[in-house]
């Protein structure tokens, strides 16, 4: 049994619109190990959600939007699977939690019933056994008064509780991979802290690998083992959490980290911001997609897009010319704190 549960290779996804093809995902490769927590961080429109939805077969297939690549789940390419086979995987071996639990839950059904139905769909057990299973999962996610709350309808629960219910539904079949798409964005800060704590505790209590998709570097900091940073449909930097947070090498990762205000330091006058906005993926630039917003951009950056360049640490890599051996040989390594200007 290989250690890798999900291996996505060179995924290309485009959407046809009347204004042209939107190249939403441009050659994205990533993998998830068993029991591991992986973060995919990027701003809206960077392709992070499209990537995950494609892997889960949730994008409409009719449009022929997947233009290339593989997504090997347990060695099996899910992109080639017929719809019926995918349905068997979803909610069972792969599951997902969304940003807004309210639209996800059925408003006319008791939440406990929704959880047991999910289990019954994939397991030939009695309703009684399914209910017991649901109770145990609700205890696992520390929902207060699980017996009573199971009998409630979604609108009778608070936002935090609904999010817990959705997590319970996602976990009841003990999936190999759980995708979490911005699970805390719609929640209040104190509830967000509860959910982050909960997901951290789940890492220890279950066998499930978690893929956390978010735009907030702060949310992933305390949670993930490895991190991918996406920008304009590409993965621009990847590596262990330690390397990514302490020795990041891509200017976009720096920008993301600097945009999160530090509460433990004295304030600076201006917040660090990344100027401009992401490129329109109908006509992505020929060179590096971040060049137009990058403080370190060179002539080379607009001429040619950089490949993913492996760095010193195992698994750490960045798609940036600043990391190219030739550049490093001439000018030395560039760090997040910046360095003397080249001239």
């Amino acid at each position, binding site marked *: 049994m290989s250690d890798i549960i999900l291996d996505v290779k060179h995924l290309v996804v485009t959407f046809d619109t009347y204004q042209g093809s939107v190249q939403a995902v441009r050659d994205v490769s990533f993998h998830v190990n068993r029991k591991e927590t992986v973060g995919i961080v990027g*701003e*809206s*429109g960077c392709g992070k959600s499209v990537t995950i939805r494609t892997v889960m077969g949730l994008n409409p297939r009719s449009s022929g939007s997947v233009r290339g690549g593989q997504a090997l789940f347990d060695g099996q390419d899910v992109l080639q699977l017929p719809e019926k086979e995918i349905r068997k995987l979803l909610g069972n071996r792969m599951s997902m939690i969304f940003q807004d639990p309210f639209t996800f839950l059925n408003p006319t059904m008791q939440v406990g019933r929704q959880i047991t139905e999910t289990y019954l769909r994939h397991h030939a057990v009695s309703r009684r056994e399914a209910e017991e299973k649901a109770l145990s999962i609700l205890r696992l996610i520390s929902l*207060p008064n699980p017996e009573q709350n199971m009998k409630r309808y979604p609108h009778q629960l*608070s*936002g*935090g*509780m609904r999010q817990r219910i959705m997590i319970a539904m996602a976990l009841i079949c003990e999936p190999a991979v759980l995708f979490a798409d911005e699970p805390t964005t719609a929640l*209040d*800060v*104190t*509830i*967000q*802290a*509860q959910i*982050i*704590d909960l997901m951290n505790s789940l890492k220890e209590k279950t066998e499930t690998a978690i893929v956390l998709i978010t*735009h*907030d*570097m*702060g*949310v992933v*900091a*305390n949670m993930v083992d490895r991190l991918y940073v996406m920008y304009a449909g590409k993965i621009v930097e990847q590596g262990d*959490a*330690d390397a990514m*947070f*302490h020795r990041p090498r891509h200017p976009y990762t720096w*920008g*993301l*980290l600097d*945009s*999160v*205000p*530090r*509460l*433990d330091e004295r*304030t*600076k006058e*201006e*917040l*660090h*911001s*990344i*100027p401009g*906005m*992401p490129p329109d993926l109908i006509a992505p630039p020929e060179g590096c997609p971040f060049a137009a917003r990058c403080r370190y951009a060179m002539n080379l950056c607009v001429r040619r897009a950089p490949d993913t360049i492996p760095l010193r640490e195992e698994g750490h890599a960045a798609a940036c010319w600043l990391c190219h051996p030739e550049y490093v040989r001439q000018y030395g390594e560039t760090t997040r704190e910046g360095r003397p200007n080249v001239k």
Partner: protein
Amino acid sequence: MSNEHGAPLLELKDVKTFFRVPGGLLKAVNGVSLTIHQGETVGLVGESGCGKSTLGKTVLRLIPPAGGQVLFDGRDIWQFSRAERKAYTRQVQMIFQDPYACLDPLSVIGDTVAEGMDIHRMHASREERGREILRLLNDVGLNASHANRFPHEFSGGQRQRVGIARALSMRPRLIVCDEPISALDVSIQAQVVNLLKRLQREMGLAYLFITHDLSMVRQISDRIAVMYLGNIVEIADSEDIYLSSRHPYTRALLSAIPIADPTVEKKRERIVLSGDVPSPVNLPQGCAFAGRCPQACARCRQTAPALREIAPGHRIACHLAQ
């Protein structure tokens, strides 16, 4: 930083805003007093349902208060004459949370920006109107080519800037910012905050900056008020809130903000509040926060603490803080 000298631009005196709902009276704002001076930013922070947006709408004359007074330049805004009301709409403007809902999808950006000028007939000719639109778009970092475009062609951050330009067109003295950045990407949030700060410097604007997120208001706020269930529980200079906050709720809010550094995160002491914000309908007796407060004692459950000064400019509503 607080400039307590001089008469305040806006003064809220024990403002109460109630709504009748099935099952009781929803006390959205339950006796809030607050001042904002010219050129000052007051951050109003709290979780959803704490009444911060209702308070903002009360200031904008969109929702009448059930009690208390809102004074602008010393005059009660709910006693205004028709002419004064009209003048008031030009002095107090609003920036909205949802960049998708705040622009009319059928109007081009130029018309949206000029709407206030059109309503008040502030321009003498079409040329002047066009020049003014350009000036406003430039002020917020957009350019002439954007004026004839429709909102759906813009990103969230750009739409938010259009909203800011629309507010600026009235040359206001106070802008109520209702969660203006919470729907934006992090890198864009910083752009908008920096833009608001720059405009404040250039025009001497005052902001009432409403948000649920303590992390972003620090850079823009001179003072911060923390609200919980219709009441201000702590108010102090911005730095005091971050470095020496005394109310358990404020401290919980601060500790709930994730920090983008795993080493700091692991060492940090976190206060995770249990449960949810209770409903503002039929509030319990005593301190509204007592149900979730890790330090609550018997006294907290019986009498509600009043806001009292514990240091110059630092007021707090808690029995326990010294």
